[in-house]
Each structure stands twice: as structure tokens, then as C-alpha cells.
């Protein structure tokens, strides 16, 4: 199938899905205030693009997201390089990591809110914690996959440990780090929205959704907010996938992505 045909079919699929939502909304299967038709939701979503207060909220969410993800990178990449290149350290902290990782990070929201209040610090701390893991594990994994021949060659030429790390291992690991970053980006958005919804006040996309959810007949606004959240997630993912393809064109197609 050619690319154009695929795009056409995809567009048709989107139209069909919208049509279905429209029909369900209008058919009166559920109360209209519960599930408004797609056209109303979309026009509200477009309308929100002109709402300065709403855009400021989205900006606050994106800032917390970027800050948390940046911090996670700054922590996870050096830590991953350390764990991946010194087996002793890896062995030493393995058990601790295995106990920390499976804890669902939204469960930390109550504790961190008690410790830090419900402002930006809480959001950023939670986002950072949750997005550290995929980057960390991908870095360690990528280091393990580095071509041993290249490392040995450099060592034979008398390059030191750090030099080998910077010249061979880090570039070879970069695609894995990027893949981890892409997974973390989605998790970071989940945590940003989840924390905001539970906090219920302040500013942010999640706050908008939470407050609309409590208002009567607010579903239209909630869904319009969801459209924005989905659009944001899609935009982030597309940019990251595009960046990965440009930077690391030799890596195989992205597999089993979350």
C-alpha cells in the first residue's frame, strides 16, 4: 500500500470516529450533558485556543513537564552510565532499585503533597521521580549493547576509561537514551496531569479538567481539555520520534513502544 493511500485511509478513519462520536452524542443514548457530540467538543477545544487563561494553564503544565523531564535526564543519564560501566555499583544498588521501581508513582502524590504542599515543586518532584526509571534502565541497557571490539580497539591505542566512555560508549548508547526519554516523556505528562487533577487548584491543564469535571454540564469542557491533552501528548511523541529518526537513522524501527 502506498503512503498516500495510507494517509487517506487514516483520514477516513478519523472522520469515521468523529462521526461515530457525533452520532452517539446526538442519539440520546446517554444524557447530552454527559456525552456531548464531537462537533461541540471540538469547537470548544478550538475556542479554548483563544482563551488566555487556559493557555497560561497549559503553559504551566508544559513547564512542569519540561522541568521534571530535564531533571530526570540530568539524574538518570550520569547514574545510568555509572551503573552500566561499574558492575560493582550496579550490583550494590540493584536491590534498592528493584524495590523502588514497581511502586506506582501516582501513589506518591499524597505523601509528596504532605511534604512539599501542592505547588509546582510537588509536580516537578513527582514527574522527575517517575521519568527517571525508563531513562536510567535504557542507559544501562544501551551500555551493555556497546560493541566490545570498538572499546578494545580504543583501549589498545591507549585511551583511558573516561575517553572510551565519551568516544564510544556514550554515542553508542545515545539511541537507547533517546528511546527511554520518549517513554519518560509520556509518563511525565501522565504525572503532570494526574497531580494537577488531584490537587484541584492552582493553574494547569489538569486543573482545568478537574474543575470542569466538578461543574454541572462540564463534560464538554472536560472533553475539550482531554482533546488538548491528547494533542499535547501526540505532539511531544511526534517531535521525539522525528528527532530520533534524524539523529539516529541507523537504529531499527522503534519496537514495542509504550
Amino acid at each position, binding site marked *: *500500500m502506498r503512503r498516500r493511500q*495510507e494517509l487517506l*485511509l*487514516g483520514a*477516513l*478513519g*478519523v472522520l469515521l*470516529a468523529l462521526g461515530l462520536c457525533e452520532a452517539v452524542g446526538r442519539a440520546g443514548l*446517554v444524557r447530552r450533558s*454527559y*456525552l456531548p457530540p464531537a462537533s461541540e467538543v471540538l469547537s470548544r477545544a478550538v475556542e479554548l485556543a483563544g482563551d488566555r487563561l487556559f493557555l497560561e494553564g497549559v503553559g504551566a503544565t508544559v513547564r512542569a513537564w519540561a522541568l521534571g523531564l530535564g531533571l530526570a535526564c540530568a539524574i538518570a543519564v550520569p547514574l545510568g552510565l555509572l551503573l552500566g560501566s561499574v558492575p*560493582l555499583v550496579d*550490583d*550494590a*544498588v*540493584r*536491590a*534498592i532499585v*528493584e*524495590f523502588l*521501581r*514497581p*511502586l*506506582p508513582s*501516582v*501513589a*506518591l*502524590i*499524597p*505523601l509528596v503533597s*504532605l511534604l512539599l504542599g501542592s505547588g509546582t515543586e510537588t509536580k516537578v518532584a513527582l514527574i522527575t521521580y517517575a521519568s527517571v526509571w525508563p531513562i536510567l534502565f535504557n542507559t544501562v541497557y544501551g551500555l551493555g549493547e556497546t560493541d566490545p571490539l570498538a572499546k578494545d580497539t580504543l583501549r589498545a591505542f591507549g585511551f583511558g576509561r573516561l575517553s572510551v566512555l565519551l568516544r564510544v560508549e556514550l554515542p553508542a548508547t545515545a539511541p537507547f537514551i533517546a528511546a527511554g526519554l520518549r517513554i519518560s516523556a*509520556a509518563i511525565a505528562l*501522565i504525572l*503532570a*496531569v*494526574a497531580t494537577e*487533577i*488531584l490537587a484541584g487548584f492552582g493553574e494547569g491543564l*489538569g486543573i482545568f*479538567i478537574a474543575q*470542569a*469535571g466538578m461543574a454541572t454540564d*462540564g*463534560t464538554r469542557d*472536560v*472533553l475539550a*481539555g*482531554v482533546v488538548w*491533552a*491528547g*494533542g*499535547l*501528548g*501526540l505532539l*511531544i*511523541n511526534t517531535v521525539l520520534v522525528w528527532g530520533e529518526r534524524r539523529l539516529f537513522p541507523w537504529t531499527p524501527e522503534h*519496537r*514495542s*513502544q*509504550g
Partner: protein
Amino acid sequence: MSRSKAATATRGAILRWTVLAATVTAWQLATRTHASVYFPPPSEIARHTHNLWFSGPPAHAFLTPAATENILPSLARMTAGFALAAAIGIALGTALGRSRRAHALCNPVLQFARAVPPPALVPVFVVVLDFGTRMQVASIVFSAVWPVLINTAEGVRNTDPLRLEVAAVLRLTRTRRLLLLLLPSALPRIFAGLRLSLSLSLVLMVFSELLPGTANGIGFTLTDAQSRSDLLTVWAALVLLGALGYVLNTGLLAVEKRLLGRGRPA
């Protein structure tokens, strides 16, 4: 060679547990010397966890009423949500994976649905289904279904064409082709999707219970303890959830190993 490998592994394990024990001891000492309301000593968290949930009569498998009222409903909702998501995801994913046309038709919608951060939709489910188990299961299913669906479709789509031709030559029926060829070859991808779905189910289970208006569950225990500033219970619930996540993930990995076999090429 193998002996030295075994020795390295043993040394690694010893190191691992020693460091863990040392960390917990250091935590214990630090919290004992600098008493803080927010960070209770681990020994007290352990005692509290035991008292709160696991000190019941042997007839109830040592579970206290608090445990049966909160842990079991959480587990039930999560299991139901995850099972539904897995069943729907595998069924729809297989259907989509078998036709390139259907895949192209649905791909943009699927990508959008997956990009929505699941907690954003929970308020919609609250309005439509009201608080309670139905809303919670629905939000778990909606968030956990996408990774399985997309991975299954990819897996089925990438079945070796040669094997498909062989199946055509052998005139395998649709069901047999599905059971003997398509699903087994998609299985590694399906499991990768299931692992993601499982952790999403746990996340959404907790999140949907954290919302005001919930009456029971581990998440409810957390918010309830938070509102009473009962830090010991908050920590106990965190330990419980961590253990739960560990057990679930290990269990799924064991099933995966069983079904895929060790060292079989994916």
C-alpha cells in the same frame, strides 16, 4: 570459567542484599536520631503494616477487616480492568493486524487515543458512570487497552510471510492459522504490551481511588490517611503498593518465560 561466574554471581547477590540491609539500617538510625513526623522509622512502618492489615485471625488468612475492605476491592478492580483490557486489546489487535487496510484506517485514531494521558479522562468517567467500581474499571480498561492493542496488531502484522505462505499451502483453517501461527509469532510483542498495561492498570487503580468520593481501596486508604496526617499509614500503603507492583510484574514475567520458553528467538 563457570565456577568463577557462579562466584561472581554469589558475590553480587551478597553485595546487593548487604547494601539493601545497610540502607534500611541507616534509614532506621537516621529517623531514630532525627525524629520527624514525615519520615517514621522503617521498623515502625513494618509494625504498622502488620497491625493494620496482616494481624487478623488465621481463618481469614491473617487479613484484618481493614485489609479485606480495602486491599481486596482494589485487587478485584485491577484484575477485572487488566483482564478486560488484555482480552479486548488482543482481540481487536489481532483483527487490525491481519488487514493492512484496517490498520491504516485506525492508526491515527489509535495514536491519538494512546497519547491522551489516562488520568485526564477519569473525570469524564466520573460524570458518566458516577463514583464506584464501574467508573474505576472503565478508566483502567481505557488506559491499559492501548499498549496491548497496538503491540498485538504490530506483532500479527509482522508475521513471517514465508510461514503465512506455508500455512496457505497446508490449507490451514482460519482458526488454526490464528492459533498455530499468528498468535504465537505475535506473543513476544503481546507480552511487551501486557507488561506496560499491567503497570498502567496499577497506576489507574490507585489514581481512580485517590479521587474524592471513593469509599474504599488502597488509594482511598492513602488519601484518608493523608487528610488525617497519619503518615504511618501513608508509608504502609506505599510499601504495600510497591510490594504489589513487584509481585504482579514478577508473576507476569514468569508466565511469559513459561509461554515463550527460554532463549527462543522472538
